[in-house]
């Protein structure tokens, strides 16, 4: 590896920052196309209703209105597709109802799109939207998941009269039950994993444009994966072939999963632009985002852990109800199953695991992957039930985890829930976290807090996640309707500058810096000579985009593979120029050298020769220096770590203050520690936000009570402490960079650490559990209940 300061492992300042700090970022809503119009969407105010009629005549006559579209205008098109099929225990496929672009005869959640008003200005469109008269007949709303299954007030979809999407299980229930029958101790915990709204700060936006002269569509959209949108919308919804549809996601202001999915508005502006012959822009406002962006989490779970007398885990048994919302979003079905149940071994040698998941339709916004996606739910389940078991058995929470850790010499490790962990060292991260947080010294801090009337507690969490999704053959066998490789093209330009075209998408992750560091390192070139191109299907190779902490592990690996091809070809060109055998040419620090001689030629000269092939082995080699590679991973990667949180509870008010949070992570090799630490910080706040602040709340009628920042509690700077983080490294064994991914860890590991700390603080009062988010009211209530 190159040891230049810009290479792998260096804290290179971000190259993308200049445009953002100068106000020159280019987000979709910043774009104005000639003759652009504005779409405002009329959305259902009801959770569940039949649509009797829509009268848009008054709206159509209002100033500036170009067109009003209803579901009739979309009859020729398909519904929004679901990208993952999950089968029932009996082998039958899940219920997969149509998800129309605009509601067809029935609305199924508050915010379900009903009509579209297009006008010359946004204000005109908004005014006219109020004049669209929709006649509804309200139906009973299905909100509560248990009730939806056991005593349904209505069926969200006729195809699923009992509101069950699927009933899926992993593991052998009889064997697990037998382990429980023989256990010395069984710990049981019932809990909710709270529903969250992702809240990327940039609201979604889409602009459709159509060129009648050649039939080309362009969609500018806030997406984490433009090629996926092109495929899903083009092939499954609108029947536009790839070569007639360009999807471009320029600067995107955060995603956290919510901008993976193909949304109705993307299809709406694409269709509308062709219908009216002018570009059509739709920009979400924040309340619309709460009512239309896919939500996350929302599980109701019962977990039981069987232990022997020494605290060794014998078996884990769990039942989860997972909310799908009103329609199946793009990847929704796989989240509570293949991204959740398969993680339930955690860092431990639990020999037997059984997990049943029932996915439920409700009259709420669709639920899909949100930062962590299934893995936070699995980690919370496991780390809470283990903590409760430790308390019940009077074993130190760190000690009980140590007794059950998979040991470093036991890798590769086959878990009972399908995954094979390639490498790890869980004691290393736990020890580092305990030392950094002075776990041993908590008694003195508790006593000092008590002298001030506060209750102090410490909590830990040891998480694992499966990232770098994913081996295509594996996910294909599990129901994925896509491959999950990544693609990269390295285009070496004639003067030696380098364009890297990647299928990964950066919406805050800093790929323009880290990917360039990788290429700079591998090719020995200055980082200034390297550009990262992403986000535009017209420029980049077909790739699957950014989510699941996959960019460096999969997208980075594709880049390395393409670089390897560049070097291999460069060696042949260099060998020709130096009149040596290609087998004797080595590439070091940007120089092609003949081994054992002082003959060398630099990378730039080879590039120039490739494009000016006057002295070139044309009979065996094509001119040019451009290579594309697709990388399909051999396995998932398994980042892991230990988090320790310390809190203080004000027993008078129930207010919880996070005093400290330490994260000790193993992400394998690290390209840019500064960016990795930033990813951890951000994840921690989303995790602490889930634990303490955030929840999307529906009332019994299916109205979303938390549809603005006046009611949905976003973490703010003064809610949070500064953090400490460290990294332990076991390199991933199966990708060329030895990397594992870091984007979601903070959000996965932190929620149980926070709740475990609160329970530790309140344990002297007899409190055993506090539900997330542990708001002051809930904590105060828990204290009052324990006093009785």
């Amino acid at each position: 590896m190159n040891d230049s300061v810009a290479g792998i492992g260096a804290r290179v300042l971000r190259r993308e920052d200049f445009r953002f700090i100068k106000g020159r970022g280019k987000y979709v809503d910043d774009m104005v196309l000639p003759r652009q119009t504005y779409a405002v969407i009329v959305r259902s105010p009801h959770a569940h209703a039949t649509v009797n009629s829509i009268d848009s005549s008054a709206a159509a006559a209002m100033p500036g209105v170009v067109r009003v579209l209803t579901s009739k205008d979309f009859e020729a098109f398909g519904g929004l597709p679901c990208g993952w099929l999950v089968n029932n225990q009996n082998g039958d496929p899940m219920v997969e109802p149509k998800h129309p672009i605009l509601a067809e005869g029935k609305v199924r959640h508050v915010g379900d799109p009903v009509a579209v008003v297009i006008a010359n200005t946004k204000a005109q469109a908004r005014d006219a939207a109020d004049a669209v008269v929709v006649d509804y007949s309200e139906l009973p709303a299905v909100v509560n998941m248990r009730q939806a299954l056991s005593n349904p007030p209505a069926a969200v979809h006729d195809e699923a009269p009992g509101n069950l999407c699927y009933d899926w299980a992993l593991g052998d229930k009889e064997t697990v039950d037998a382990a429980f029958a023989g256990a010395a101790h069984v710990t049981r915990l019932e809990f909710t994993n709270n529903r969250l709204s992702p809240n990327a700060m940039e609201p979604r936006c889409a602009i459709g444009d159509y060129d009648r002269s050649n039939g080309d569509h362009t969609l500018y959209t806030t997406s984490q994966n433009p090629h996926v949108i092109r495929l899903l919308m083009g092939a499954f919804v609108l029947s536009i072939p790839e070569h007639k549809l360009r999807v471009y996601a320029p600067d995107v202001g955060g995603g956290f999963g919510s901008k993976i999915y193909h949304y109705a508005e993307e299809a709406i502006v694409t269709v509308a632009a062709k219908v009216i012959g002018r570009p059509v822009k739709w920009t979400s406002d924040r309340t619309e985002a709460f009512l239309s962006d896919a939500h996350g989490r929302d599980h109701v779970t019962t977990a039981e852990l069987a232990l022997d007398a020494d605290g060794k885990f014998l078996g884990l048994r769990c039942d989860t109800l997972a909310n799908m919302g009103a329609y199946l979003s793009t990847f929704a079905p796989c989240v509570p199953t293949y991204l959740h149940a398969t993680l339930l071994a955690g860092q431990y040698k639990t020999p037997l695991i059984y997990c049943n998941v029932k996915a439920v339709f409700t009259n709420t916004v669709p639920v899909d992957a949100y930062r962590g996606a299934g893995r936070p739910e699995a980690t919370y389940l496991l780390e809470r039930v283990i903590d409760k078991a430790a308390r019940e058995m009077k074993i130190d929470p760190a000690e009980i985890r140590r007794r059950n850790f998979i040991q470093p010499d036991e890798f590769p490790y086959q878990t009972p829930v399908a995954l094979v962990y390639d490498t790890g060292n869980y004691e290393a991260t736990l020890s580092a976290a305990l030392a950094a947080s002075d776990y041993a010294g908590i008694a003195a801090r508790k006593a000092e807090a008590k002298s001030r009337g506060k209750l102090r507690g410490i909590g830990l969490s040891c998480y694992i996640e499966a990232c770098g999704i994913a081996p295509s053959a594996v996910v294909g066998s599990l129901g994925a309707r896509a491959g999950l490789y990544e693609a990269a093209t390295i285009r070496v330009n004639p003067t030696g500058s380098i364009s890297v075209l990647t299928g990964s998408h950066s919406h805050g992750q800093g790929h323009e810096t880290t990917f360039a560091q990788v290429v700079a390192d591998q090719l020995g070139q200055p980082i200034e000579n390297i550009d990262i191109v992403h986000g535009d299907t017209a420029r980049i190779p077909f790739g699957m985009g950014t989510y699941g902490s996959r960019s460096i592990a999969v997208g980075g690996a594709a880049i390395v593979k393409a670089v390897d091809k560049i070097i291999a070809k460069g060696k042949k060109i260099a060998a020709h120029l130096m009149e040596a055998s290609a087998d004797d040419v080595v590439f070091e620090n940007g120089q092609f050298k003949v081994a054992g001689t002082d003959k060398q030629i630099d990378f730039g000269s080879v590039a120039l020769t490739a494009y000016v092939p006057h002295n070139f082995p044309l009979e065996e080699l094509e001119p040019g220096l451009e290579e594309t590679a697709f990388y399909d991973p051999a396995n998932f990667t398994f980042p892991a770590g230990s988090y320790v949180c310390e809190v203080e509870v004000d027993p008078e008010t129930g207010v919880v203050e996070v005093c400290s949070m330490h994260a000790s992570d193993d992400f394998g090799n690290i390209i840019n520690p500064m960016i990795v630490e930033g990813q951890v910080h951000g994840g921690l706040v989303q995790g602490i936000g889930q634990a303490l602040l955030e929840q999307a709340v529906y009332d019994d009628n299916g109205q979303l009570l938390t549809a603005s920042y006046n009611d949905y509690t976003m973490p703010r700077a003064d809610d949070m402490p500064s953090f400490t983080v460290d990294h332990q490294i076991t390199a991933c064994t199966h990708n060329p960079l030895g990397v594992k991914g870091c984007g979601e860890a903070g959000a996965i590991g932190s929620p149980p650490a926070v709740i475990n700390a609160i329970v530790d603080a309140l344990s002297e009062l007899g409190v055993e559990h506090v539900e997330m988010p542990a708001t002051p009211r809930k904590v105060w209530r828990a204290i009052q209940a324990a006093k009785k």
Partner: protein
Amino acid sequence: MQSFNYAKPASLADAAAALAKAEDGTLLAGGQTLLPTMKARLAAPSDLVDLAGIAELKGISVSGGTVTIGAMTRHADVAGSAEVKGAIPALAALAGGIGDQAVRNRGTIGGSVANNDPAADYPAAVLGLGATVRTNSRSIAADDFFTGLFDTALNAGEIVTAVSFPVPQKAAYVKFPNPASRYAMVGVFVAKTASGVRVAVTGAGNGGVFRVPAYEAALAANFSPSAIADGVISAADMNSDLHADAEYRAHLVAVMARRAVAAAG
């Protein structure tokens, strides 16, 4: 936001005339509540009469044991005013805790008082200090001014011009903010004056800001947190929402009141 006519008069008389002329006019002060409400289409006035051009509505004066704050004086100006900090530090601190800095740079006392949002901070100070609300036609005692949720004694067309606060012996305001909006979920203003103690509560009541006579009596006898140690008020008249049920709010009123007394010293 729906369309409206906009006027920016230079005098109170012109403002009153513009308002009188309007079909369904509203005064625009700092706009920090009104504009979001209009954006959400929960308000659609035919006319906005902007008070920002009326110089006499701005400014702070202290004389004879009274602090008078012009209606268009911004929260940031009250929070930063040396006169207010010297005379009624609790009032400056309250103003410095409204919204965030950008909101305090626009929001005004007149707008806040006239709107009487049940979760706003200023009504607690106005009632807790026994202030007088001055308008273009009369003076209204605080006890008569706040008449219910978003409701005041102001007549149609009446314009708040200033609020006069008597300087107390000691006072403090302690707020438990709504975790999401940062408005007061419970805010308690406690003031000790020569004529007695006043305790005003915002954020908690289902009828807006209110006084707590039982606390006032107990604190008049003994101005210390211990005097109201057992004083839990009834939950019957408390607000209940997803952040705090009525019983929790009633409990918080007691806790914030004790903390306010302690802070007042």
